[in-house]
Every structure is written in structure tokens, then in C-alpha cells.
């Protein structure tokens, strides 16, 4: 049975992650066609419910939906009835009443997508909830890595920077390790989560010691808006200790992949030169994001069997109508 929601990487497990990566190849091919549009999700309605700022994730989902011929409903908090005090639940019920097949949600509080999944019947896709999860980012990161390395088994990936506030780090660690990679998180103590219990990764505070051993270095955005908390003494000191500077770039292995979820603070966690280095996969990540999100949307919405078409005929020679796998 194919999954109904995509809330967390942990729900998928290795088999589903690999199935999504396999499907992504087909959708990348669609994106490369002279007319990059297939009728696969014709008649499906997808709503964006973004309570937090986003450019690439939202545009990426929007492009993915359009390439699959789905209809989309835009919802931006700043111009909606949320300003009149409408609750999250009422907003969701309202959207649901108009008939949606999926809601892509981003919210500053962890757990919101799970809550919405309890209230309404549509497929829910988590596009980031607080510090908690960002599963489609992790899937596109996995796809980018497998394009370069084939299998992730035995590969070593360093995730560097503001681990504490990063939903990307939490989803990435789960996804990379599910595919057999080893992950080391590198950050000053103040940017580490309060407890690392249950985290399936190694911990280091010394980037220079870790870099020679990695196949990929994943730099997280230094969340400048949180600097008033004084988690690092100064950005310059952070860059000196944990940034991918020109000097570190020179000592980086020839086949080491440089990754970043965007938006980049050039000159802080990643130098101008490192961002534009041939080893940098940053624009590849963005391009892959569209294909991966097409695969996710198709997996969740294209395989609901008779559930999504209550009046559809069920030919008796078509076999059982369960999901796949």
C-alpha cells in the first residue's frame, strides 16, 4: 500500500525512499522533454498552506504539480482570513470543504502536519514543521548524492552548522543513515541540540579533522535571524571555525560533494568560491527538488486506487486494488 501522507522520513524506511528515488529518474526525464508536462494528476487539487516564508520549496512544489497537470490553490497567510483570527483547524476545514486531494503545509510549530492529517481526509505533505522535519528536502538530497555516488552504503557525510534549529539536519540524518551512509554532525556546542539521545550519528566540534574523511559536506544555513540569542560570539568566529572557507576548499577531496539547502549566506557558512566550485551541487539540488517532488506527489496522489475515484468503474480483470508493494 503506498503511503497516504509524507510527514516524516521515519515513516518511509529504506524501501520507500529507494522507490521514490527510482521514480524520480522517470520524472527527471519528463522535466527534460520539449513539453515537460504529463497528464498523470489531471483533476487533482493541491493546496499550499505556508505559514512560514519559502521561495524554493514552494516554487518547486508548484512547478512539480503543474508538470503533473494538477490544479493548485494558493494560500498565503499574509492575505488570508488568518489575519482575522481564523484558527488553523478552521482554515484547514475550509480548504478541505472546497475539495482538495493534498495539502502541502509549512508551519513554524513542530507536529502541525500530523494534527492536520487527523482533521481532514486529504494527503498531507510536510514542507517543514519548525525544527522538526523537512522530508522532501532530505529526499532531494539523497537523490543528489545517489546521482554522484550510486549507492550511499558506507559513504560518510558531514552535516555542518546550526544543527539545533535545523529540520533539514533532522530529516537528512534519518534519510542518509536509512540508505546506509554514516553521518557526522559538526557544530559548536551552542548550536547542537540539547540532547543527542537517539540521534543516529557521530558528533564532532572540529571541522578540519572531519573534512578529509567525508564524501560530502553539507553546510546548513546560519540562521542569522537567531543571532540575538548570541549562540556564537560573532559570525566571523563562526566562519573561521565552521565555514567552508577558501582555505578549507583547497584541501577538500577532488570528489567531495558540497551541498547546501539554501538560501546561502555567502561568506558565512560557505565562501563565494566554494558556492560556485565545480564540486558544489547546490543548483543540482534545486533542479532535483522539482523531480523528487513530482515523484512524491505522484506516489501519494496517483495510487489511491478506487479511494480517489469513488465512481470509477472497477474492471474485474484488473486484479486487487491495493496500493503497491
Amino acid at each position, binding site marked *: 500500500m503506498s503511503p497516504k501522507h509524507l510527514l516524516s522520513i521515519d515513516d518511509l524506511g529504506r524501501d520507500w525512499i529507494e522507490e521514490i528515488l527510482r*521514480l524520480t529518474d522517470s520524472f527527471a*526525464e*519528463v522535466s527534460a*522533454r520539449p*513539453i515537460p508536462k504529463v*497528464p498523470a494528476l489531471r483533476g487533482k487539487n493541491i493546496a499550499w498552506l505556508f505559514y512560514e516564508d519559502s521561495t524554493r520549496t514552494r516554487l518547486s512544489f508548484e512547478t512539480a504539480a503543474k508538470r503533473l497537470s494538477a490544479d493548485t490553490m494558493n494560500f498565503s497567510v499574509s492575505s488570508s482570513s488568518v489575519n482575522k483570527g481564523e484558527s488553523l483547524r478552521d482554515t484547514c476545514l475550509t480548504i478541505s470543504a472546497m475539495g482538495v486531494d493534498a495539502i502541502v503545509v509549512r508551519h513554524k510549530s513542530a507536529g502541525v502536519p500530523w494534527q492536520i492529517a487527523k482533521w481532514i481526509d486529504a494527503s498531507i505533505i510536510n514542507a517543514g514543521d519548525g525544527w522538526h522535519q523537512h522530508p522532501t528536502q532530505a529526499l532531494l538530497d539523497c537523490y543528489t548524492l545517489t546521482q554522484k555516488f550510486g549507492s550511499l552504503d558506507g559513504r560518510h557525510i558531514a552535516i555542518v552548522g546550526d544543527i539545533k534549529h535545523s529540520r533539514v539536519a533532522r530529516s537528512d540524518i534519518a534519510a542518509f543513515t536509512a540508505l546506509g551512509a554514516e553521518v557526522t554532525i559538526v557544530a559548536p556546542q551552542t548550536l547542537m541540540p540539547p540532547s543527542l539521545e537517539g540521534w543516529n550519528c557521530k558528533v564532532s566540534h572540529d571541522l578540519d579533522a572531519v573534512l578529509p574523511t567525508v564524501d560530502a559536506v553539507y553546510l546548513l544555513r546560519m540562521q542569522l535571524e537567531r543571532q540575538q540569542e548570541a549562540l556564537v560570539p560573532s559570525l566571523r568566529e563562526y566562519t573561521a571555525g565552521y565555514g567552508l572557507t577558501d582555505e578549507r576548499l583547497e584541501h577538500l577531496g577532488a570528489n567531495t560533494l558540497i551541498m547546501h539547502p539554501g538560501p546561502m549566506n555567502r561568506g558565512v557558512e560557505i565562501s563565494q568560491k566554494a558556492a560556485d566550485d565545480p564540486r558544489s551541487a547546490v543548483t543540482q539540488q534545486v533542479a532535483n527538488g522539482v523531480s523528487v517532488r513530482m515523484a512524491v506527489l505522484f506516489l501519494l496522489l496517483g*495510487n489511491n*486506487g478506487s479511494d480517489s475515484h469513488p465512481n470509477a468503474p472497477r474492471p474485474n480483470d484488473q486484479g486487487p486494488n491495493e496500493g*503497491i508493494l
Partner: protein
Amino acid sequence: MAERERKMTRPFGGVFVARTSVMSADDIDRAIWRMSHEIIEHNHGVDNVVVVGLQTGGVPLAERIGEAMVEITGRDVPFGTIDVALHRDDIGIRPVMPEEVTSIPCDLLNKVVVLIDDVLFTGRTIRAALDALTTFGRPRSVQLAVMVDRGHRELPIRPDYVGKNIPTRRDEVVDVTLDGVQLGEMRK
């Protein structure tokens, strides 16, 4: 009679149990050569002809027909494959998943596309393939070659080149490989 594992969109597929053999490997080979000659004759050569195999059953046949056409004419024949899953009309009614990545070697504008599949049944796969082709340009014409035409069409679609016409019951399964064609059923 032989049994073989058939790969189809999950959870379909399973083990095919053959009941009757209707074409041998030699029969298939002769049909491939005859159809290759027919395609060349019909198109007065291979100018602008592109051979496209339907994933997954049509691809080995398309490869053989493409090779035969090259051997007969001494000319290059562009070869592609197409997976029609994303263009099917039964998405949402039964599980549909792309199995292989589509690969079309060139712009299809003004080309003559010869679609090749193993079995022609309801015609719905071919409808999806015609839809898919339009995303690669506007071919001058599209022709259809199938190894087996088993009848039971549900759409106004007919083949241009046929290996063999085989009358069947709806619930039978026709299994085509380069080793032969067999009639039988799926064991779940």
C-alpha cells in the same frame, strides 16, 4: 509447459503458467525479419524513421527490429524507448507506476515513428503512447507494429504490422519473449 516470472506494475505480475505454445523462437525470428522488411517497404526506406519500443515488453522486440532494419538497409535507424505509465487513463483506478525511464533520441518533429509492442489488446497502452509522443514534438506519422494482436479492442486503434493474429479469451494471458509466444494464465 513453461512457467516464468513476469514483471509488471506491483502488485500485478507473478508467475505466468503457459498452457499452449503458439509461436516458436524461429517463428518470432521470421516475423521480426518480415515486419522489418514491411516497415522499410512501406516507408520507401528508413529516411526519418525512428523506432520506439514500449516499456517493458516491446523493448527487446524493438531492438531486434531496429537491428534488422539497419542490417537490411545499411543505414542508421534512431532507436528509443517509452514508458507510458504517466499517460495512462487508469491512474487512480489501479496502481500505475513508471517501470523504466523513457529515452527518445531526437526531436520527433516531422519524423515517422514506428511504435513497437509485444501484444496489442485493448489499445489503451497505445493511446497513452500516442499521448506521450506529443510531448516530444509532432511526428509526421505514427505507425504501430506488434508481435501479437489478440483482439478485444476498446478504442479505435489498429496495427500496421502484425507478427501473428491470435484469437483469445479476455481472461487469458499472452506471454511474448524472443523465445516464443505462449498462451496461459497468471498464478497469483
